[in-house]
């Protein structure tokens, strides 16, 4: 057989039927469901008199709308409450497992899927959410879908898809100290642009990617969609297999051995052909900070805000000018001189235990600067929160002046009560710096957890490489 990429292999293993028009009927192993993109799909199912094809392939949780403060009070906003209750009701009606708001296992859908072993290597995973690309970190084909497709998967366990092209992004060499998975992926997006991956499935490879922990790989794949690719993926290796051992939904006993053997094949063949390849040198990557309203508007922390006058492409120049206006920034301003109002550590990009450890290592024994009105830590799941508390990280954050919250999407998109006020500027570990993303008129700068933590202490951006941190990268690097 001809040499195949990881994407080719995952695709081939899930083709139910090849249609004459070039599309395929693709089988979906795992469907994750949340409250925002599913109500209209369940309604469609009901109206057509259809039932879920395979109930046990679905796993649901509410994450976007849930409050991050005391949950015993329920959801105050009646519209948010109705949406969460609609999910509860749909899951009851169709017997779908749901981790409800008071369940310890509740959390951001992209954090809890892998945490439970509900997402496994070699699967096809979909969810009505663009950051489903996160799950590609394990040699998995994972991509976001719209509500019509949510209904399609519920009803048929399949999707009609056209295969994407193969793009490999290789990051070779070793990153310097203070440079994290988040900086790697921001640097990639800075290089190829937010549409650079459109029409492609990206495989991230190279020694810098292999050196990342499984959680770091999730951070990289999470933002594949910010580079325009519906799916980002990384070959499975020993670290991947170990990550899933003993997780609740992972196979056990003889089945585990059989699965672990199969997972060894989840990598591109040596001579596999990619339609396009991009190579970055890891040693060149510095800690990254976005300055504009698109994730591609990113520079290293020791750089300055760029000047649109120097941009030759007229469409891009106009985009830069409007971004600078929205962000209230002047060209030439050193990134380190940008003062902040709020800090957000959380989201499906950076809310896992290693992220919290990295941030805690920076803030330990220090205090949030006076100009910071609010510094939030929102763990990705109830289980991440519990583990962090066992490690005493909650105390480190609280002593430093951070608020320690309940899990959910929170200020990543501000659908609940956590948000920026107009004009407020935030260092955020999330994935989107779009206009109004964190609240109408709010200004977002995307950074790594350690950089967000350091900015909280200083009140403005600082170069994490100039700060003495005991252990800024979590355990497994």
């Amino acid at each position, binding site marked *: 057989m001809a040499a195949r990429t990881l994407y080719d292999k995952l695709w081939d293993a899930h083709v139910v039927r090849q249609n004459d028009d*070039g599309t395929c009927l693709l089988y979906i192993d795992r469907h994750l469901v949340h409250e925002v*993109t599913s109500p209209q799909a369940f309604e469609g199912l009901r109206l*057509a008199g259809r039932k879920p094809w395979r109930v046990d392939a679905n796993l649901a949780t509410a994450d976007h709308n849930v409050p991050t403060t005391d949950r015993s009070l329920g959801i105050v906003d009646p519209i948010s409450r109705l949406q969460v209750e609609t999910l509860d009701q749909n899951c009851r009606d169709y017997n779908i497992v749901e981790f409800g708001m008071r369940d310890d296992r509740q959390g951001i859908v992209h954090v809890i899927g892998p945490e439970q072993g509900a997402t496994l290597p070699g699967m096809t995973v979909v969810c009505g*959410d663009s950051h489903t690309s996160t799950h590609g970190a394990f040699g998995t084909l994972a991509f976001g879908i*719209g509500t019509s497709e949510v209904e399609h998967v519920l009803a048929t366990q399949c999707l009609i898809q056209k295969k994407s092209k193969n793009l490999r992004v290789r990051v070779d060499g070793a990153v310097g100290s203070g440079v994290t998975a988040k900086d790697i992926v921001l640097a990639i997006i800075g290089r190829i642009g937010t549409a650079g991956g*459109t029409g492609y499935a990206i495989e991230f490879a190279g020694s810098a990617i292999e050196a990342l922990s499984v959680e770091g790989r999730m951070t990289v794949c999470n933002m594949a969609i910010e580079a325009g690719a519906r799916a980002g993926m990384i070959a499975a290796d020993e670290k991947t297999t170990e990550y899933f051992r003993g997780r609740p939904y992972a196979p056990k006993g003889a089945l585990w051995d059989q699965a672990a053997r199969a997972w060894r094949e989840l990598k591109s063949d040596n001579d596999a052909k990619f339609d396009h390849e991009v190579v970055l040198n890891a040693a060149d990557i510095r800690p990254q900070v976005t300055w504009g309203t698109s994730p591609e508007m990113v520079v290293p922390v020791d750089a300055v805000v760029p000047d649109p006058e120097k941009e030759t492409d007229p*469409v891009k120049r*106009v985009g830069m000018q409007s971004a600078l206006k929205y962000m209230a920034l002047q060209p030439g301003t050193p990134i380190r001189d940008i003062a902040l109002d709020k800090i957000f550590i959380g989201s499906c990009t950076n809310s896992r235990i290693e992220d919290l450890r990295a941030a805690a290592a920076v803030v330990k024994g220090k205090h949030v600067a006076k100009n910071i009105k609010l510094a939030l830590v929102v763990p990705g799941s109830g289980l991440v929160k519990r583990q962090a508390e066992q490690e005493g990280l909650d105390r480190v954050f609280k002593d430093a002046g951070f608020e320690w919250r309940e899990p959910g999407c929170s200020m990543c998109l501000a*659908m609940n009560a956590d948000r920026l006020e107009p004009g407020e500027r935030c260092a955020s570990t999330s994935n989107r710096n779009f*206009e109004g993303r964190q609240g109408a008129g709010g200004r977002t700068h995307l950074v790594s957890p350690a950089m967000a933590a350091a900015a909280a202490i200083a009140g403005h951006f600082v170069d994490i490489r100039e700060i003495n941190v005991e252990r800024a990268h979590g355990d497994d690097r």
Partner: protein
Amino acid sequence: MQKFEKLTGLVAPLDRPNVDTDAIIPKQYLKSIKRTGFGPTLFDGWRYLDAGEPGMDHSKRRVNPDFILNQPRYQGTQILLARDNFGCGSSREHAPWALLDYGFRVILAPSYADIFYNNSFKNGLLPIVIERDALDRVFRETSATPGYKLTVDLAAQTVTTPDNTVFRFDIDAFRKHCLLNGLDEIGLTLARVDDIRAYETRRKQEAPWLFS
């Protein structure tokens, strides 16, 4: 799904790249559990000067007179001109729902984000990929000529300007077929029940842990 065959309509130019789905329909409106009613809050942050919340009477809000869709000459528009990477960001299908609910049936742009592109077809909204020079020309002519209309013919895969210049566009055969006939994809897939069952039987042998 709504069929799409042929349309002659007013054109509105939205001259900025990377228009994301948060801009098309901001998150506070995603709390709705319906598919309809998103038209009044399409491009909410650009269209109004005050902050919008669900449940408001949007007809009483302060409109931004500078925003393109608020200009009298573009009222009743059905065709949106846009720039690169239109619809990037979140997978929310509320974005095509909002565009349709507002009255758009066609978008012309040089490129789209994949998920948005896909979602549009499922709802009877036609996103046309148009070549850059043609697009630049249409941008110029639309701005220069009040009442400027284009004719879009899906069967023929053409866009025709008022002076009868014809631009051809490409479209995937399956998508074209579904859109021309208003077909329900789920129904098509359910006609393949035997194939799906055969796949599951085979897969249970190869990878039993996926079914345990």
